[in-house]
């Protein structure tokens, strides 16, 4: 992410009208439910450009945990101005599941106790166990807890309205992504906009995305050779840092699609509108675009990536490895092999927390990869 989005400023603006802000992690919280209950969910992911260091986080997390966890912890613990009214988390990886208690304890010590809400998303394979009753209970309990803690109420009408609004936002995100694929929009601008959306109201998100879609001030130089640029897909838990994105685009590659958790994977799923939140979110999670964090989607991952390659006619896939993200790293060798067997070239780029020193190494590898795809 670029540094131009001031998250704290965004949060202050959100807070201005008395809205209650819920920080959420990991990436796929039940946004529609929060909106329906007049709460503003903000997804705390990809905060690399927001926190300047990890001083506070380093008191709690070892340096072999991923940057997502370290930045998130730093952001929440160093943000003592009471901008967040609560934290919501569901079960994810082995690092993140331990964060709520660390954050809770330290927040109490800091005198800014945060309301922490935890939900368990079933990770069973639907073909093996029917978890719908368990999940329904979790969602119903979540609604009760939100009502109780934040003095809000749930209504089916407002939920349906929120579902429609979020579907509209996801459609706009998809349209913006298509503009990137066609060379009308720089990937960095697109990624920044999606990131900003996470800290904006639904109306602001719509305005931001529409302006991105309607912007026809194309970069002529960039657009000129778009048809001769080999298409690549980016895959990973986070988009790469701006320097890597610039390197990819300036090497003559066209980013035609993304399998990135905080981007494409998060807006690709659009379940049918339903009044019952449990039924809606069961569809949402179980039909979700495959992501290593949703354990039951493992078998669909390769197929969906192949589908993306086919649809975009990409010649290569660049895996953006988040250092210490075990979920992603367990899958790379298999995906790389499968793609290569189909004649799709791959490149792995590892991004670590202190990665500025690696920029030139990344650039060289990306240039070499671009040459390979052009040959």
């Amino acid at each position, binding site marked *: 992410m670029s540094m131009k989005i001031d998250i704290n400023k965004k949060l202050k603006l959100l807070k201005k009208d008395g809205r209650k802000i819920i920080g959420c992690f990991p990436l796929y919280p039940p946004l529609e439910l929060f909106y329906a209950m007049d709460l503003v969910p903000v997804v705390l992911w990809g905060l690399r450009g927001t926190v300047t260091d990890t001083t506070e986080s380093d008191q709690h997390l070892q340096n072999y945990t991923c940057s997502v966890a370290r930045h998130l912890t730093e952001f929440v613990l160093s943000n003592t101005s009471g901008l967040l009214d609560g934290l919501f988390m569901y079960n994810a990886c082995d690092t993140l599941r331990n964060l709520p208690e660390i954050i809770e304890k330290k927040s109490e010590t800091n005198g800014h106790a945060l309301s922490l809400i935890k939900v368990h998303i079933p990770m*069973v394979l639907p073909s093996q166990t029917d978890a719908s009753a368990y999940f329904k209970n979790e969602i119903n309990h979540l609604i009760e807890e939100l009502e109780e803690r934040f003095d809000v109420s749930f209504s089916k009408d407002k939920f349906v309205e929120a579902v429609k609004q979020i579907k509209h936002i996801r459609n706009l995100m998809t349209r913006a992504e298509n503009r990137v694929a066609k060379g009308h929009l720089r990937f960095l601008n697109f990624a920044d906009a999606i990131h900003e959306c996470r800290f904006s109201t639904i109306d602001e998100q719509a305005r931001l995305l529409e302006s991105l879609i309607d912007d026809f001030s194309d970069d002529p130089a960039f657009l000129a050779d778009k048809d001769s640029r080999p298409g690549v897909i980016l895959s990973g838990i986070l988009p790469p840092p701006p320097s890597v994105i610039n390197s990819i685009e300036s090497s003559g590659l066209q980013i035609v699609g993304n399998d990135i958790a905080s981007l494409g994977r998060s807006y690709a799923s659009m379940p049918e509108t339903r009044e019952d939140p449990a039924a809606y979110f069961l569809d949402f999670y179980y039909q979700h675009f495959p992501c290593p964090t949703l354990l039951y989607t493992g078998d669909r991952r390769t197929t969906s990536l192949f589908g993306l390659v086919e649809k975009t006619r990409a010649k290569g896939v660049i895996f953006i490895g988040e250092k210490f993200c075990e979920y992603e790293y367990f899958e790379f060798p298999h995906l790389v092999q499968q793609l290569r067997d189909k004649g799709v070239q791959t490149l792995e780029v590892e991004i670590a927390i202190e990665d500025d020193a690696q920029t030139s190494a990344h650039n060289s590898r990306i240039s070499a990869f671009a040459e390979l795809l052009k040959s």
Partner: protein
Amino acid sequence: MAKKEKTSAGRNLSKVVGDAYMDLHAKAAHGAFVVWIAINVPAELFLGFENVVYGVPESHAALTAAKGVGVLQCEKAEQMGYSMDLCSYARIDIGSVADGGKDSPTFGLPKPDLLVSDNNNCSLLVKWFDVHHRRMGVPHFVIDVPFCYEPQKEKDRKYIIQQFNDLIRTIEEMSGQKFDMDKALSAVSNTSEGVVHWKRFLSFAQQRPSGITAFDSFVQMAPFLVARGTLQFVDHYKLLADETEQRVKDGQFPVPDEKYRLFWDNIAPWHQLRDMSGSLAKLGANIVGATYTSCIGTVEGSFALYAFDGKDPLEYCARTQNCYMCPHGMKLRGQAMQTVIEELNIDGIVFASNRSCKPYSVTQLDQQKLMMDQFGIASVMIDVDHADARKYSKESTFTRLEALLEQIEAKRAA
């Protein structure tokens, strides 16, 4: 340190483990239905079938590391593209499977018919077993166990039991065998009885000097992973506890001139057991207990025995699903640790920050602070990797361990 002679329980341990692997290979060769499981998967369920056998990749990886070939197997996985940052158990296992168990101390594990992972000890296990699922084309059953920030809730227990029933049905369908609940009940009873003896064995750490070292207990965990639910399991732990009791009566202690009583937090450093215990003993230090071994046969938040009431084996297995340290949170861990530290009169805690086990290690920095601030216990954080010796430095570890002993001395002098 007293000269280490092999005890009867030590000799029997080799037999139990050797028999288990031989039996596994032999039965698999004769058509048994083979399941690979994560350590938290209740193996007793498989004893409810006539001819279902199980192998535990984590246990096999630990044995491989203890036998000194962990790094060799890790390197094979790394050459296949698996990152060096991934869990070393997983890398050992993937490397071992890649060439059919070559270099494995047990000739690997027989090819499975079904993989059963769970996500409570670590959710990466599901990804690890997915690697085998894809490479071998073997079905993968995932048991989803909600993490415990508080004592396990009934709704979660019911959900776990539902999955156990689904697992049983899956095996029945795949193997053509019928599950017998009475056999499973008998297996759970055997495990529970063995655990009583295990707890008795661990209790000799309360002696001063301690009747055991944590290193003994690490090694003696193996039957939990290869022989749970059997009579051999009960007999072994009875032998172990009885023999230890006799040795204590006879005045035989592993570190007779014990000056410092330490407690270990994390998985055992399998590649360093002999060296680390010997070097510590020379300093008059004994690691007398460990969270890793104390949690067996308990429930989250306590190291007290959680005995089987003889009624419903699935209920018992579900209730104990969060007993290991990783499936529950910092508050519950601290609660259990505090009690055992008092019971064992611990002078200092060794927090082993383990690069290969994030679920065990994340929260250790807070836990260390809690133990020091609230209970005044001296402690140190060392860097280890449970199975990859390349990520361990003896010099740096012992510099820190010696600093811990100095802290203890300073506290005594104050």
